[in-house]
């Protein structure tokens, strides 16, 4: 994992308003040189607007966009040392594969020598494993190949930032996995800063050094995939990064490192806060499905609740159970293969206990 050392691009209080819609609301974010950063969120959360402001297709209504320490608000897209891989690739249908890739180089003034251009194009084709495809027409290429061409067309210019707008959206699942690994390798190999926009949490988690989670035009949380997964700040982030069980609760005791909450059922539970908490505050508690143990006998743990098994889905390396507690409701529990072999399979209707260890329960903003 590359560590962000120097800031290459920055958003400072950037707001973008379209008509009466606030697409991006005072975004503050520094992007480090060489890092792989993802904007993650559902459609309409402002992630694409943020990307388009970095590319120069949209001007911020307020705030500043910086590239290499320079304010570039008024710099048009064609003057920015930034390249983009478009969602549907936007390859030029009237040009061959190599002419598409050479397009950016051919716009440079003073002109770059032909020999140098064709050498660079050849090298870019090799990098994306499309050697020999240069003379092909765009429509002769498959979806996956077209995406590689789009990638080659961008990286051949050695941009300061490579922007990727949902680049995998049009690919099937298997191809997407392959491309994710390839993109990650490519990023390490080239050392170019990648900024990815996606609504696919798996994609963001597997490729990024840092993820910037967005909601309704705002940045909700920025952090490494592990940080976001282990210590989400709000219910929204916890729900968007991985799956979780959520319950409403009220804080009854707010000691600095040990919080007691009272569930709607009246039961008291203990957890760790990721946010400043006051006594009496209404919060949301979260427990990840894989941190719950499902046992026949009551375990001496932080909390053990009696449940009835309702549903079982075999997923291979895991089995997913839906277990219902009378007072709290449904728990989604993910039991690893090994644990299941020890404890045996549970059938629907069976009585069992769910339990978790100290610190597994997260207390989040509602």
């Amino acid at each position: 994992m590359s560590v962000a050392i120097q800031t290459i691009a920055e958003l400072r209080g950037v707001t973008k308003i379209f008509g009466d819609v606030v697409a991006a609301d005072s975004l503050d974010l520094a992007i480090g040189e060489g890092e792989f950063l993802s904007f993650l969120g559902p459609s309409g959360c402002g992630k694409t607007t943020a990307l388009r402001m970095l590319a120069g297709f949209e001007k911020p209504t307020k705030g500043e966009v910086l590239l290499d320490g320079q304010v570039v608000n008024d710099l048009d897209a064609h003057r920015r040392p930034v390249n983009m891989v478009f969602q549907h690739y936007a390859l030029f249908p009237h040009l061959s594969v190599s002419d598409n890739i050479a397009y950016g180089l051919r716009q440079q003034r003073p002109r770059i020598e032909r020999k140098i251009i064709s050498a660079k194009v050849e090298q870019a084709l090799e990098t994306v494993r499309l050697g020999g495809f240069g003379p092909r027409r765009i429509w002769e290429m498959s979806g996956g190949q077209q995406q590689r061409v789009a990638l080659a067309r961008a990286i051949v210019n050695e941009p300061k930032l490579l922007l990727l707008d949902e680049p995998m959206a049009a690919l099937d699942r298997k191809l997407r996995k392959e491309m994710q690994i390839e993109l990650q390798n490519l990023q390490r190999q080239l050392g170019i800063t990648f900024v990815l926009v996606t609504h696919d949490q798996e994609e963001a988690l597997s490729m990024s050094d840092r993820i910037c989670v967005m909601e309704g035009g705002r940045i909700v949380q920025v952090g490494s995939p592990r940080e976001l997964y282990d210590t989400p700040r709000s219910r929204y982030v916890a729900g968007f990064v991985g799956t979780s069980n959520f319950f409403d609760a009220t804080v009854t005791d707010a000691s600095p490192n040990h919080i007691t909450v009272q569930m709607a059922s009246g039961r008291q539970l203990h957890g760790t806060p990721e946010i400043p908490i006051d006594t009496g505050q209404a919060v949301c508690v979260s427990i990840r499905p894989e941190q719950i143990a499902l046992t026949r006998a009551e375990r001496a743990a932080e909390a053990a609740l009696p449940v009835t098994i309702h549903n079982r889905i075999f997923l291979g390396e895991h089995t997913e159970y839906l277990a219902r507690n009378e007072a709290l409701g449904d728990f989604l529990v993910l039991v690893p293969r090994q644990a299941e072999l020890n404890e045996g399979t549970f059938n629907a209707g069976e009585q069992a206990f769910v339990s978790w260890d100290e610190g597994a329960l997260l207390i989040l903003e509602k």
Partner: protein
Amino acid sequence: MRLYAVCVYLFLYAPIAIIALFSFNAGRHASQFTGFSAQWYGKALNNPFVMDALQTSLIAAFLTACFASVLGTMAAIALQGVTGWLRTLFDALIYIAIMIPGIVIGIATLIALVTVFGWLNPLVAALWPEGGTPPQFSMGMHTIVAAHTMFTMALVIIIVRARLSGMDRSLMEASADLFATPWGTFRQVTLPLIAPAILAGFLLSFTFSFDDFIIAFFVAGSETTLPIYIFSSIRRGVTPEINAIGTMVMAASLLLLVLAQVLLRRGAAKSAG
């Protein structure tokens, strides 16, 4: 239902087929087929009046097509940025230009031109330096081209605009992202992609101008286009020579129309692929 359809097509196309058939008539009468011969084609092509009229028509059609495709393309591109009531107004004007009967355009253009020339000629004569002969504006080739350009331009606008709106906007953004200036984007991306539409518009304008009789009849002045020549010869009786000319014009027009269609189809397939 089928019989009805057959009757309609017969009514539409039988006269044309008969003209084509009689153009190969050996005899000199248009109503009596006496034998097969291509002599009237030779006669028509050797008639200096026919060739003169053909030349006039070709020049007028070519100039019209040039002006219409350049101006029409420029208008279509400019109209992309126009919205609201102004857009509605322009759209209405474009369709009106196509739907107004040729005779109205012809008369209106004639009256307008006569009026303008009536004002302009004395004015220029008054301003012209002593001793020189001031130019006289009158009807002729330029007025035919102007009148034809006016309504064929509307066709080009519609064809090019359809192509533009079918174009992926992100292609223009990709070009800008790859450091192309706005002019560079237009030259390297927009123009090549709309070129089939422009060419199709050019061919259609050429055909419309070449075939037009009514408008040309009003504004041609002393010029004789091929349709005007045919009209005046018919008054002296229909000969197989006229049929031969008609058949040739029809064949050439059909060829151009088919070519325009092929270009549009291929262009659409290309941008979709």
